[in-house]
């Protein structure tokens, strides 16, 4: 292929490859499966042999399809002269920007090794003075209610007590887990279907993400939290009323201060229909809602939405964890939200400017605790359900998030990993070889919704069992008694100031 001088020049200056598929030619059956399955065209079949063609992202698809088990993906050792300050990551970013001249896009949560406070806390257990509870023999409850609360129940005072009617809309989930807002658009039809199927099977909630609900998914509406984001794509009154709850999305942990971003590559015919936008155009939501420039505006929108759903489903607000999150959360509760979702800065996304993903926001551990403390201080904590997300990777993270003050967690990346995602951070390119973050028919069809959904179901069931084990060990038989029970956490990290802010004692400190 003839290359222009300019292209050649650019090639010379491009950063070196990071990964290389290595095929053991002695075992290879020359079936070409890997070549066909690689959506990034990183493999070629030349002269009867499979050869690397560059651009491998280590998604690992080829390894899984190879019948001869003869592919290995190597991380190419750094080709950069060592420099601790201008490290490889920094130099690669500079090189890409010099090539593209644009804001670097990326996806998933930040890959920078910020401290993870979840890993710096340990839990308590019961010994002698109170009995541990064996969840295999005794009841340990994990049901979690989602919705607003009045803080007080008015019961008739004479005769046997009763209530005339439910004090408000409320949803019961079988475990304190919500699958986060992963929109159709950011992921494929099959991927979203699998997530909704899992939510229904587990009797938990799943977010619709921005862009409305596909007609086919109406049967799952009772497990879906619909989202009103700044783009208002696909939002209609009937749609909102049909879902279990409505969430007004102000922000997302991976891109605080930014709106949704669906690259045109992913706007297929189906997406253009559900979102009601032209084929192939970038769907870029405004940064703020253009009818919310203040907390009063938010209050009005909450009222409008509550009116339009006739007070039949809870209405909540999702915000990115930012430095003043405590005060913002308090304002949101006062504005009438039935639930708040706080999304920490390590949270994932289908597409975001890398600069924001990596450098803006607040870790979820701190945000949960600050919000819980603030709402408690203002006497508001028992009015609202608090969801916390932003890199909940395991049941341990979930349990610690609850102990820090969340009623339930919101999980995205872990659910995708259960379905096959390898966290290769290429979602924004729309070429996901696992059929998840793509709209290409031939790729999306690789994901079998039944199989994927069963894997998500198994993952969360196992988390819930682990939650019960921990609750039992702590002598707690219902998960609500863990919510904000920071007494049962101890900090085990290098920075006791963080522990102080989170309201968690240091390891070695007892109760009395």
């Amino acid at each position, binding site marked *: 292929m003839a290359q222009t001088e300019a292209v050649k020049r650019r090639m010379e200056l491009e950063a070196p490859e990071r990964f290389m598929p290595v095929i053991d030619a002695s075992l290879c059956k020359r079936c070409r499966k890997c070549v066909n399955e690689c959506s990034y065209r990183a493999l070629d079949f030349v002269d009867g042999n499979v050869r690397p063609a560059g651009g491998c992202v280590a998604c690992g698809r080829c390894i899984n399809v190879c019948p001869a088990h003869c592919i290995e993906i190597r991380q190419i050792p750094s080709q950069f002269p060592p420099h601790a300050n201008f490290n490889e990551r920094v130099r690669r970013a500079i090189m890409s920007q010099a090539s593209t001249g644009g804001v670097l896009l990326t996806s998933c949560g930040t890959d920078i090794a910020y401290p993870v406070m979840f890993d710096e806390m340990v839990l308590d257990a*019961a010994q002698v003075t109170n009995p541990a509870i064996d969840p295999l023999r005794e009841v340990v409850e994990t049901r979690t209610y989602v919705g607003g609360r009045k803080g007080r129940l008015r019961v008739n005072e004479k005769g046997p007590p009763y209530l005339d009617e439910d004090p408000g809309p409320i949803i019961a989930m079988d475990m304190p887990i919500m699958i986060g807002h992963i929109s159709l658009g950011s992921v494929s039809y099959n991927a979203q279907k699998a997530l909704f199927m899992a939510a229904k099977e587990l009797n938990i909630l799943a977010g619709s993400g921005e862009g409305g609900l596909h007609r086919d998914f109406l049967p799952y509406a009772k497990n879906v939290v619909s989202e009103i984001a700044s783009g208002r794509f696909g939002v209609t009154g009937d749609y909102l009323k049909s879902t279990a709850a409505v969430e007004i999305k102000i922000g997302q942990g991976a891109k605080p201060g930014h709106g949704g971003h669906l690259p045109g590559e992913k706007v297929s015919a189906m997406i253009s229909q559900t979102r009601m936008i032209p084929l192939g155009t970038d769907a870029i939501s405004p940064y703020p809602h253009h009818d919310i420039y203040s907390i009063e505006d938010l209050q009005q929108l909450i009222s409008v939405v509550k009116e339009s759903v006739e007070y039949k489903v809870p209405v909540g607000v999702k915000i990115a964890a930012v430095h003043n999150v405590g005060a913002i959360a308090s304002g949101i509760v006062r504005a009438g939200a039935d639930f708040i979702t706080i999304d920490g800065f390590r949270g994932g996304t289908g597409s975001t400017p890398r600069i924001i993903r990596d450098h803006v926001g607040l870790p979820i551990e701190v945000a949960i605790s600050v919000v819980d403390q603030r709402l408690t201080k203002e006497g508001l904590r028992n009015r609202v359900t608090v969801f916390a997300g932003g890199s909940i990777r395991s049941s341990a993270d979930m349990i610690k998030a609850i102990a820090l003050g969340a009623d339930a967690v919101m999980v995205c990346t872990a659910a995708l990993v259960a379905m096959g995602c390898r966290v290769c951070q290429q979602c924004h390119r729309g070429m996901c070889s696992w059929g998840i973050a793509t709209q290409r028919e031939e790729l999306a069809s690789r994901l079998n919704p039944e199989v994927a959904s069963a894997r998500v179901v198994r993952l969360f069931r196992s988390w819930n069992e682990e939650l019960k084990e921990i609750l039992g060990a702590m002598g707690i*038989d219902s998960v609500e008694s863990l919510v904000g029970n920071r007494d049962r956490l101890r900090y085990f990290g290098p920075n006791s100031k963080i522990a102080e802010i989170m309201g968690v004692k240091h390891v070695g400190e007892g109760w009395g």
Partner: protein
Amino acid sequence: MKDMLEPENIANIPSHIDAELLDSVDVERFGASRPPGLSYQMGGCGIAGCIDLTGGRISGGVIARMLETMGERENGLGAGYACYGLFPEHRDDYCMQFFFDHETAKAEVEELLKGLGTITKDEKVFTQRVKSMKPPFPLVWRYFFRPNNKLEWRGRSDLSNDDFIVQLVMHINSELEGALCVSSGKDMAVFKGNGYSYEISKFYDLDRYSGQMWISHSRFPTNSPAWWGGAHPLSILDWAVCHNGEITSYGVNRKFVEMAGYRCSVLTDTEVVTYIWDLLVRKHRLPITAAAFAMAPWYHDDINRLDAESARLARWLRITYKEALLNGPFSIIVGKRQPEVTMITLADRKKLRPLLCGLSPDRKVAYAASEECAVRVVSPNAETWTPNAGSPMVAMAGRGVLRTGNELPFQGGV
């Protein structure tokens, strides 16, 4: 800390106790002031209570025998008694009983009270030195107090008398060094301290009192200091709570009462349990059965077995008051005076701590205790039963045993 108590009378250790064994616990001891660094205390315990259902009176000696019989449930780091129907001649005044570590604290409290209302009478609570007990001995003083008609507390003039007393007690207990208000209800008082149950009953000479109802508690704390203020019963207004257990949800329950304006100064789970009763029953006007259900609810799956109306109430109690759920093992005896002197018992929903109720053969006196021996020692032929997990027994002076604790939730008309 100055030893304030000048012994007038010296009581000896009862003959059945081996004095040699009493010295074994060597800990720092505290009177009214909170021990430094204290953040939470816990322990196992013995509890006992008795109520005359006909409105008659029971001598302090009866409850002392009940409690002392369960000697294995205490280790000398605290015991106490609450008596109801104690001051018929002052029944309309709040009886505020204090521990003082020094005269300054007493003077401060008096000045505060005088500014906010009338002290209709005050007196030193009778105490006597018990040989085996170790100092400090706080001064125990009681004031019969009537708040001003035109009340104002920190700019608020909308407080009821009861709310005002709650705020006042919280203020004194958390702000005034060396003073601790141990009870503040009408026609009732708490007698407690640091020592074995028999030491405390001798210290106050309980035989000199009789009342319609007594509830009592002896402590077996595992890691908390020997603090007079930390002994049970914990009390606010006419509520008193004796509690055997360890609440694993303390952090959540504490947030719940603090949101409603209570300030935790004693830092025991029992203190929080006391405030939850006050909040749910007095402030939120829940029937006793509904409040008890909020604290020790049925499992979600079992709620479905209730009739539709009860199930709806049960569900919403769990949702609305999820922070009031007392998790972990406990059995409690709760006393209250309004509208009638009432004894309530409640055990956790897995019944991890013992609780037994009894009724004298003439059906005049109802009992509750951790162990059967406590009932038998005062009423050998009493009829006894064990209430269900999470189901309150309710006995009311003048009305009898309204609920045995074996009914379905919300049954029993209370």
